[in-house]
């Protein structure tokens, strides 16, 4: 369990790193999924720690993970759809264009997290 706890923390760190440093949004989405799986693994460890009453793990956090995985998939699908639409419209997928609709460039450029 200790091993998986460390693994989960490292996965979260890796995912966060990918999310911050990868310029390509698709890679950001993949990194987000790794980050998310690290968080879910943390739920799994918490569930495993809660083993009692004759079951090997607390079923409540496990059920929460199942809900979480489905929500994360929905998020991925929406992000990919936005990305593909952006690509179809503009031929690239950069997120560091001058912000906002219209011709006037805003002063702050809105970089992703």
């Amino acid at each position, binding site marked *: 369990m200790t091993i998986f706890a460390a693994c989960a923390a490292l996965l979260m760190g890796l995912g966060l790193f990918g999310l911050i440093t990868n310029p390509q949004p698709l890679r950001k989405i993949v990194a987000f999924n790794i980050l998310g799986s690290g*968080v879910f693994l943390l739920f799994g460890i918490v569930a495993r720690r809660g083993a009692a009453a004759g079951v090997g793990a607390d079923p*409540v956090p496990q059920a*929460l993970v199942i809900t979480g995985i489905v929500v994360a998939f929905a*998020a991925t699908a929406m992000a990919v759809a936005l990305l593909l639409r952006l690509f179809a419209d503009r031929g690239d997928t950069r997120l560091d264009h001058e912000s906002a*609709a219209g011709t006037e460039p805003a*002063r702050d450029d809105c970089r992703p*997290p």
Partner: protein
Amino acid sequence: MTDAASQSVLPVLGIMLPATGMLLMLLVGGRYVEWLALILLPAGLAVAAAIFAAVWREGHTLIYVVGGWQPPLGIALRADGLSAAMMLVTAVIICATGLFAGPQFSQPRGRPERRAPLVFWTLLLAIWAALNAVVVGADLFNLYVALELLTFAAVPLVALTGGTETIEAALRYLLFALLGSVSYLIGTVLLFAAYGTLDIALLSARVRPEPISWIAASLMTIGLIAKTALFPLHLWLPPAHAGAPAPGSAVLSALVVKGSFFLIVRLWFDAMPGLLNLAAAQLLAGLGAAAILLGSILALRQSRLKLLIAYSTVAQVGYLFLIFPLAGAASEPASSIAWTGGWLQLFSHAFAKAAMFMAAGLIAEALGHDRIAELGGIARRLPISTLAFALAGLSLMGVPPSGGFVAKWLLLLASVMQGQWWWAAVILLGGVLAGAYVLIVVGKALAPAGAAAAPTAPVSRRREVVALTVALGAVLLGLVPLQPSELLQIGRLDVHALAAR
């Protein structure tokens, strides 16, 4: 929470009525969508009013234990005074937006289904269901699902017009929001691991001020701040809110960012009441103050009306965070005054900002653009919209008579009473800056039309009146008595118990 509470199914209806309505809309499609909206909007308003009346009359929290399974195993919904007020304001704004959007998003008769109307109405109801779920939720994971519901309804609304810039803004918004969700989720699991429950009432009794609570609270707060667009995580907001169609912008700016703010308050004041210390409160308010000043200054520098209003949202959201040091400190009556002032700021900003975006949408529709420099003469052509904008501006500035005035006055009073005068200075300066950016726009609108003024498109009078009515709502909020509200205290932890911590 207080002991007195009554079981009521109304909170469930508040969530399920718009949620099932949204599913039905998607099922029937076409022109039936508007008819359904015509039924569902008043029905939802009635539910919200019933909850408000019940909480007001009985003076205590409404509770519903879903499926009869008590927490910690099951999920409860709780509507306290604050939830009731939030639900009512949400319902009023949503219904007004519905009235405003009616002509813009209607299906043509006898033609194939169009995209924008179906998507708009379903998203409007989804946002409503999500906001109600956020304000009556009493379980941290249930609230996570509610937050995701809110995000997934808000992002497509940003992208509704389909312009490339709005798609980009929506994607950036989604990435920020997802990072926020993950951060919130880590905090949730840590709290569950430490205390064995996700129920807010149970947590408030179990949470101790120890490192794990601190870590969990910080992670959840960071996540929620990203969704609230508090400085320095505000970068996604202006393009997203400015890119949405006008009714969408109104709902996004007036209500959606408030959902996650509401949860930050739930977290610190209800779930972990013993945890809010001076440093954390000052830090949150410091970020809020930075947002007020930076947001206002950036708003001043915008050349497009919708972007100006969006930056103004960044600033006005900052005021909300002053609630943490001012209402969190245990010094009555100052903290109750600040509590009322903070929430009044939220409500009056909701009305004012919705009205502003509606007015700006009408102006942009008439002119075909929203460049501030070329607004000349619009006051003569759209006097009602200009008036709506100006009245809403009064509330943002904090000039009497307006809800914004009462809110800012109460916050000012509380900060002076508690000797935290630096917040008073920020409030005043923010008011002056708001005055500047509102006056720039109003001044341009009142100026005579330039020689090259383009012909204007006709604009529906009914929609102008809706915008003006919403702006009047912000002004009318100024009529509430200048004192702490008892309604907003219903169901709160005893403030004096906080003092004893």
